[in-house]
């Protein structure tokens, strides 16, 4: 997951490396995703990874609802 100056830079990178254009979103959305995913203290005994349902719900909450974000 890389950061780019703009969509044009993403297109150039995809062409250069023969990679499909996957999901693209703003730095602000990435910050929201990072908080949802990593804010919990992983030192806590009660911490556990998100279930598939919880992870998909997190994506949906951020507007990531396309097939790209499905986990099964």
């Amino acid at each position: 997951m890389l950061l780019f100056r703009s969509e044009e830079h993403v297109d150039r990178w995809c062409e250069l490396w023969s990679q499909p254009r996957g999901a693209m979103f703003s730095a602000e959305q990435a910050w929201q995703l990072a908080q949802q995913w990593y804010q919990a203290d992983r030192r806590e005994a009660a911490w556990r990874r998100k279930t598939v349902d919880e992870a998909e719900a997190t994506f949906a909450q951020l507007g990531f609802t396309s097939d790209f974000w499905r986990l099964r």
Partner: protein
Amino acid sequence: MNESDLHNRVRAFIFDEFMQRNHAPSASETAQALGLDSAAVRDAYRALADGHVIVLQSSGDILSANPYAAVPTPFVVETARRAYNGICIWDALGIVANLGCDATVHTTCGDCSDGIALTVRAGKLVQPGGEVVHISVPARHWWTNIVFS
């Protein structure tokens, strides 16, 4: 101590070492610090890796305890106390979220290599420009090659 308690103690120690010192403890360091058997801690490392909580190198050493990377990366998180590395922009911002402090993520455009800095202050991303994040691997395949993803 049952297996679940052991894994929890080992996990807590690993993440505390990353958070406090940006240090990836070896299994023997963790065993010594916690007064546990080395073989049991190595098993716990494998179990945590199987559960996608950490990623191990072929040597058995930690490559990452996401969001923290144990090796230099192009995603450097600078805080008032120290610097950290994330494997990708999501993890770099994840380090900021996990630490809950002000920080700046230093990286480069994946295409042109121009430097980009994203600053978080008081829980908010400061003046984001038009930068975009891109991921080419669909979510259900991320763990096929988590380092590439």
